[in-house]
């Protein structure tokens, strides 16, 4: 039976275990199934890494991540008060729908919670809670993303990309925050969408991969939805410009957005909100701050003059100007333009003090774009069709 699991199916199976874990946590009676599902995740991951993974260094890297993760306290506010507190609530309540009580609004009960559900499943398997190991669940979720990057970038290309990924994501690999996961899932989704857009042959085999990564991306954090929308809008734009409308791809895009739409409907129905949405982002806020020039300079300073973003931009521009690949440049450029535009709107309409908000989040929200630039820069330099 194991022979039936080919390379691509195996990655899909790993992704499915993450998504089914989330589904099993909807109803609070599946504790045993949740444990079995988590064991399956571990089994499929190990199976792939041993049987199919060509770059065996990835195994050492994942073990190193696990080692570092388990030797760290959960110290940052986001990790403790948002993500691991959600995990803890899911662990004790046996459901992801605990949010309807709207308890502890500071912890953003309206945020989607696929990663906390996965971490809660790890705690279920272990059998108790503590302040250290549950965040390992977040680091384990990197496995399918790293596997796919290794599949697309073979040999030393992958090692260069891995080194650049550590440079961009750094501590977010292990500290219990989700910004690293968002970056990796976004970049992998971008690679798959780019492949489906420009290498029209054999895209059907990538459809499940796309669905798996895109659904998880949107259910990680709100930025995940914004990032996926940027990819989808870019993709649809190219279809329209090239007059090659791919309805199958359009349907796929729609399906990938359904889970997060359902989550938002659920929050709307139960009036689930957080301490910030009570005096929320508003059109009035946007209109009142859009005329203040200082706000634009502040946002530019924090987002664009971020050293990692600038380095990745230089790297990408160099790669594109040297190895001319106009289609790829346009694709990446449009995605970045849309995302940075969205970030400007968010920061201009923030109900919080703008500099405080930028100071606490700008370097994190720009990471997916920095990683995208490095990844597509490498892809462009070595310019080999991913398969």
């Amino acid at each position, binding site marked *: 039976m194991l022979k039936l699991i080919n390379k691509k199916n195996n990655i899909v199976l790993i992704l499915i275990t993450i998504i089914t874990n989330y589904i099993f946590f909807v109803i609070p009676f599946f504790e045993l199934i949740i444990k079995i599902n988590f064991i399956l995740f571990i089994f499929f991951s190990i199976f792939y890494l041993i049987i199919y993974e060509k770059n065996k260094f990835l195994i050492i890297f994942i073990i190193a991540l696990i080692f*570092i993760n388990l030797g760290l306290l959960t110290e940052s506010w986001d990790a403790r008060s948002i993500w691991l507190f959600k995990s803890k609530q899911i662990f004790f309540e046996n459901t992801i729908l605990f949010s309807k009580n709207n308890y502890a609004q500071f912890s953003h009960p309206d945020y989607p919670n696929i990663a906390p559900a996965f971490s809660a499943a790890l705690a279920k398997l272990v059998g108790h809670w503590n302040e250290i190991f549950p965040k390992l669940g977040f680091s384990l979720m990197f496995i399918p993303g790293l596997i796919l990057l290794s599949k697309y970038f073979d040999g030393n290309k992958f090692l260069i990309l891995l080194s650049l990924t550590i440079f961009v994501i750094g501590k977010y690999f292990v500290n219990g925050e989700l910004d690293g996961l968002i970056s990796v899932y976004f970049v992998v989704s971008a690679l798959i969408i780019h492949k489906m857009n420009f290498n029209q042959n054999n895209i059907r085999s990538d459809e499940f991969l796309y669905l798996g990564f895109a659904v998880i991306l949107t259910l990680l954090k709100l930025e995940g939805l914004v990032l996926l929308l940027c990819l989808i809008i870019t993709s649809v734009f190219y279809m329209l410009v090239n007059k090659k409308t791919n309805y199958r791809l359009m349907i796929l895009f729609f399906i990938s957005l359904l889970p997060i739409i359902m989550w938002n409907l659920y929050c709307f129905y139960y009036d689930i909100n957080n301490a910030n949405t009570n005096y929320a982002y508003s059109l009035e806020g946007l209109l009142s701050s859009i005329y203040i020039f200082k706000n634009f300079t502040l946002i530019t300073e924090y987002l664009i003059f971020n050293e990692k973003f600038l380095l990745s931009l230089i790297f990408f521009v160099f790669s594109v100007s040297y190895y001319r690949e106009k289609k790829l440049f346009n694709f990446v450029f449009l995605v970045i333009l849309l995302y940075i535009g969205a970030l400007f709107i968010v920061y201009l309409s923030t109900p919080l003090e703008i500099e405080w908000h930028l100071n606490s989040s700008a370097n994190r929200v720009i990471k997916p774009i920095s990683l995208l630039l490095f990844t597509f820069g490498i892809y462009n330099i070595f310019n080999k069709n991913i398969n």
Partner: protein
Amino acid sequence: MNFIYNKKIKIILIFIIFIQLIFLANFRLNFKIEIFKKSFVKNYGANYILPKSVLELKFISERNNYKKINVSNEIKDNDFLLQRITEFIYPTKLDFDLSEIFYLQSEKIPFSCGKLKEFEYLVLVKC
């Protein structure tokens, strides 16, 4: 052998990644081997991060099997303390309508309230 599969370059890249990971663990983050060794021990880790009063409150609520507790206004006004309590004592929840209230030892207790029990860092009063 081209660049992609050159073994010398591979070794250099692996070395760089290890240096990055060591830098990450030791300088960007505070990796401790003693934490790693006990990383799966039940309830481990809180005493490194949380104030003593929060640890004590968790201990009291677990020992007495409290489903809900209330805390003083001073604690409510202290975002740091209130959030740490909310997270750490869970599944015990905060209910601000309860008449039995936990005060910090350093706090002044209102005349209208009577002490029920004193702990090392906290006082339980009824108002």
